[in-house]
């Protein structure tokens, strides 16, 4: 006898029975796959572009000696160039030039300028050997732009580009193009760059090619011993890897969100399959009695799930590719995260990645249906053929212990530290808590419905009936609710996390923005700064009560990690909490020690602790400093160190500043003082900002960054509700004959509808109760584990009660509506017919 399950009728029967619940599951899976694949594509396009550019630029260099704080003594160059293991040495001065004409650019892009000795550079970099006449290459005021820079600046050879050096404008002439990919970049002569940007005697980099037969590692070790503290030796690929490292936490978090979406999709499959097998119990049992073996039945049902997964996966890949292209076209490759400024990446369909995410989608679907399928396969066909035993299936899920065990596991996972600097256990905890909630759901639902039974319903029959029906079918109810609980929980958790973050950020901004005016000329590492004479002129202006100059620069403490920001500003060591948002108590530095205040990221990634004495590579000697406190920094997740500007200037000899905080005297108008200050310099070189504007801008950026999360939350809830409505419709259909009976014993249509609405409300209440509690727990994991381990900043929990109440109300309302509508649809058929059915 041929295997029955192969018969097309059987397969059609099986799939058709999934109905539009299947469709919702497919959509949820597609959403997860689309999100995962799309984000993956955008990001890998950006990383590939960055890495490719770094590699092209590195040319044939074997090793790179790099200045730790952006500048090292050029005397190192001849010392390295004459080493026996070195075949060629190419010195470079790298800087980020501010282009005043582009001051309003949305992406706040800088022009990266490479000052090179063309003769040396072309020994390592064949692209540079192709530069035209030595004529222009040697002139101190000539620039060669890569295509990205040409496009960005909208210039052609022969045009002039004005960049800012200090608070002066430097006009450079575009002499030609240089064929280097990646973000806007210009090449000019090193002597011209050193002189124009006030970096005489300084180099940022020396690229080395080793003689044949010299080992890279050995040479790196030998040469490292020659280097002053301000310089370090790296492999040429270190920077590219660093770029990938920089975005790792960000990227993994988005991937994890995608996996959560897939998880929800899997849950929907689980719920729909579970309800389907319950509903089709007798049908399946019949198939068994007709000769279908247990194995064949399992394969049939898992096959159904796999089909859902594949369909969802394919749809997801198509959507994801569209999403990737859309994101690249609108927000650029940085996904709003500003990690990849100015990149012109594009994402083509990537088959291995597409296959992987399709596989994940399918896996989620199959795993989701595994439990109910195995369950139904175990049941004896004879018992299943009897009507009315559906609820028996769920009897053994009434025990809370497996769920509580999962809760314990989740708690344990949340307590574990990061793995490879990523919060894998944090995500594990989230999944465990979600699973725990699903497992506990029947038990909790039963308890909650028992509680509801004690409510004074004043004999309102539809409500009593609704409750009785639900209590009798708590197992099935839980299944219907699982996706909604998960999506409510995820949405609530995100809402609490984002709300807490926003609130903490606002507090933080209020604390930091205490001056009346902020003058800014450059950001970290670029060509614009306020020299000493400009500082004196600013301080001498009438109406200035107090002015405090600040200097920020990048310190590269570890070649594998993004540079750390060193912020030189004024901090009173006895009252640091007045100027810095300290976490915990500050600590007085030991007498004679230079205090620094580190961000939480320094604590997490470099393991520095208050009281510890560490060395900063400033100037040519290591500077011992003592950690006097830890502060919260929401801007630089790579880490930052605050030092008193006097201490910094004494150690480095650098008296320049990037920013100034200004307090105006009594009676002086802020706007007038700001105008006079910026008026001291050519237009656009120095910008004045007011704390209110800065705060608004920061919050706007924050909201834009999290706009994607809001969209995700909405999608999650929509999917959850769709799942609920599908399940509800199924429940109603399954119980048509009960309604028929109810109609026959005298209930009218409206009463039945009211009963259904009550059921919807009750279900929503259960889902919201469980989902919100679970969401609260998940938000704690997100704030204290995931965020802390990914971005290394803490925040104060703030539950946004208002928005959450609104959210809960809308979900409840939608659930009632859904219930009423699906009930009405289900009851279109005549009561008489409904009763006759199955009799």
């Amino acid at each position, binding site marked *: 006898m041929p295997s029955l399950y192969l018969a097309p009728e059987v397969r059609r029967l099986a799939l058709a029975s999934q109905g539009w619940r299947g469709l919702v599951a497919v959509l949820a899976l597609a959403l997860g796959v689309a999100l995962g694949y799309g984000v993956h594509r955008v990001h890998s396009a950006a990383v590939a572009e960055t890495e490719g550019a770094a590699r092209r630029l590195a040319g044939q260099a074997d090793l790179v000696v790099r200045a730790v704080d952006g500048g090292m003594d050029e005397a190192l160059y*001849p010392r390295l160039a004459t080493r026996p293991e070195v075949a060629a040495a190419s010195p470079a001065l790298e800087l980020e030039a501010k282009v005043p004409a582009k001051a309003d650019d949305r992406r706040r892009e800088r022009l990266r300028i490479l000052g090179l000795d063309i*003769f040396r550079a072309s020994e390592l970099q064949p692209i540079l050997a192709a530069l035209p*006449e*030595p004529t222009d290459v*040697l002139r101190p005021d000539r620039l060669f732009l890569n295509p990205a820079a040409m496009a960005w600046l909208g210039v052609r050879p022969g045009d002039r580009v004005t960049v800012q050096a200090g608070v002066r404008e430097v006009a450079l002439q575009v002499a030609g193009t240089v064929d280097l990919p990646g973000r806007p970049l210009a090449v000019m*002569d*090193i*002597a011209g760059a*050193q002189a124009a940007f006030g970096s005489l*005697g300084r180099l940022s980099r020396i690229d080395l090619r080793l003689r044949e037969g010299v080992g890279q590692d050995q040479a790196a070790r030998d040469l490292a011993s020659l280097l002053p503290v301000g310089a370090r030796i790296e492999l040429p690929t270190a920077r590219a890897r660093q770029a990938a490292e920089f975005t790792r936490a960000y990227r993994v978090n988005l991937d994890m969100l995608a996996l959560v979406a897939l998880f929800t999709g899997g849950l929907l499959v689980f719920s729909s399959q579970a309800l389907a097998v319950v509903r089709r119990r007798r049908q399946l049992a019949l198939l068994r009695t007709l000769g279908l073996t247990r194995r064949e039945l399992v394969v049939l049902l898992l096959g159904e799930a796999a089909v859902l997964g594949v369909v969802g996966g394919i749809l997801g890949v198509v959507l994801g590719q569209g999403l990737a292209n859309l994101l690249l076209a609108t927000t650029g490759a940085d996904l709003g995260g500003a990690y990849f400024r100015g990149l012109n990446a594009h994402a083509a369909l990537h088959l291995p990645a597409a296959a992987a995410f399709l596989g994940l989608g399918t896996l989620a679907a199959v795993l989701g249906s595994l439990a109910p399928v195995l369950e139904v396969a175990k049941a004896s066909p004879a018992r299943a053929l009897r009507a009315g035993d559906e609820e028996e299936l769920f009897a053994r899920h009434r025990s809370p212990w497996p769920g509580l065990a999962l809760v314990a596991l989740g708690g344990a996972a949340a307590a574990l530290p990061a793995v490879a600097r990523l919060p894998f256990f944090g995500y594990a905890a989230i999944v465990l808590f979600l699973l725990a909630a699903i497992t506990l759901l029947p038990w909790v639902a039963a308890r909650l419905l028992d509680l509801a039974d004690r409510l004074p319903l004043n004999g309102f029959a539809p409500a009593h009936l609704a409750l009785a029906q639900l209590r009798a079918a708590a197992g099935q109810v839980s299944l219907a609710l699982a996706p909604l609980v998960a999506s409510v929980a995820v949405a609530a958790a995100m809402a609490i996390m984002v709300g807490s973050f926003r609130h903490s950020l606002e507090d933080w901004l209020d604390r930091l923005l205490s001056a009346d005016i902020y003058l800014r000329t450059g950001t970290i590492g670029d060509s614009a700064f306020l020299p000493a004479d400009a500082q004196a002129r600013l301080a001498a202006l009438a109406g200035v009560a107090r002015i405090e100059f600040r200097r920020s620069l990048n310190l590269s403490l570890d070649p594998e990690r993004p540079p750390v920001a060193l912020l030189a500003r004024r901090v009173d060591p006895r009252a640091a909490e007045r100027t810095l948002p300290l976490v915990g108590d500050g600590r007085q530095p030991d007498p004679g020690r230079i205090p620094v205040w580190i961000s939480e990221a320094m604590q997490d990634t470099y393991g520095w602790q208050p009281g510890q004495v560490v060395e900063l590579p400033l100037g040519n000697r290591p500077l011992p400093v003592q950690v006097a406190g830890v502060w919260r920094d929401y801007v630089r997740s790579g880490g930052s160190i605050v030092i008193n500007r006097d201490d910094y200037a004494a150690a480095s000899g650098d008296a320049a500043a990037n920013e100034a905080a200004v307090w105006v005297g009594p009676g002086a108008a802020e706007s007038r003082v700001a105008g006079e200050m910026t008026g001291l310099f050519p237009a656009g070189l120095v910008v004045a900002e007011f704390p209110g504007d800065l705060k608004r801008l920061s919050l706007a950026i924050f909201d834009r960054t999290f706009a994607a999360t809001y969209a995700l939350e909405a999608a999650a809830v929509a999917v959850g509700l769709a799942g609920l409505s599908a399940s509800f419709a199924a429940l109603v259909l399954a119980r048509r004959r009960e309604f028929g009976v109810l109609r026959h014993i005298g209930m009218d249509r409206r009463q039945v509808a009211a009963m259904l609405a009550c059921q919807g409300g009750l279900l929503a209440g259960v889902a919201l109760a469980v989902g919100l509690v679970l969401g609260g727990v998940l938000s704690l994991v997100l704030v204290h584990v995931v965020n802390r381990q990914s971005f290394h900043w803490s925040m104060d929990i703030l539950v946004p009660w208002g928005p959450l109440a609104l959210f809960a109300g809308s979900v409840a309302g939608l659930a009632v509506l859904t219930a009423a509508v699906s009930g009405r649809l289900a009851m279109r058929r005549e009561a008489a017919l409904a009763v006759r059915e199955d009799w």
Partner: protein
Amino acid sequence: MGRLLAAVLLALLSCLAGAVDYPPVAAGRPLAFPRDFGSHPDFRNEWWYVTGWAKDREGRDYGFQVTFFRHRPGVAEDNASAFAPRQLLFAHVALTDAAGGRLHHDQRAARAGFGLAEAKVGDTGAWIGDWRLERQGETYRARIAARDFALELDFSPTQGPMLQGEGGYSRKGPLPRQASYYYSLPHLAVSGAVAVDGQRRPVSGTAWLDHEWSSEGLAPGAVGWDWVGINLKNGGALMAFRLRDRSGATLWTAGSWRDPHGEVRVFAPGEVAFTPRRRWRSTASGAEYPVAMAVRVPGLALDLEPLVDDQEVDGRRSTRAIYWEGAVRAFRDGQEAGVGYLELTGYWQPLKL
């Protein structure tokens, strides 16, 4: 190569100049040694240029050429950076292996500074990294580790400097300012070794050094030139060159001949004649060169025959030109009368100066 590089760079870099006043080359400034063995950084261009023949113990012939070229581009002279390109140095080396039948060559370029590349004032000394040509005592030492060969050669003068033109004032065109300071050291005794194909071979032979500096470009209208320097067996030495115009006609000639007794005859323009005897076409570039040339000056007629035909140099990467420069034998009345170097430029494409 030295001359070609000089000319091409001059053309390329001349537009850089303007603000800079280069000292003019004028008659009546007597050369003084050892001062004038050294660099003259104020002048726009300068080169030290050694060509010669060497033989290893197995009797294999080699032609070699070592040039250090200094250029003052006249840009960024007021730039305070230690990298300011006030002086540029170029080096070109070539080795013709007669047995191998081919020419090896290599080049370097650098801005002077940091002790990594310099041209010394006061006595001959020029280097780029570990390539160097230096006068130590009376002896010139060349140490060159090129990509696929190496030269480790010492040159000992056997005669005094041969001042070209009027006591070292050598005219390069009809105008008085079209001139250079120029002296030669013929009949340098060569000792040392060449390393080629991974084998170091002790050699000995005879070489010729030219040292020339100037601030002027080439005469307008010139598209190429022929130059020759021959160490005659009898101890005499001949230097001759001509500039050619677009039609191949001679624009300017000059030359001098020092006889074995030290008597120098300087030839007036028009007294030097170059006549092609045999042409060779390069399969690589398609250019045709008069690799065998007849050189006539009053009192001396030499027929030149190349060591190997293919001594074409593809210098497109540095000078943007392909030209021929090679070791030649000189025959007088059918008898080998000496050896030297011949340079033929402007045959591939007119030099775009």
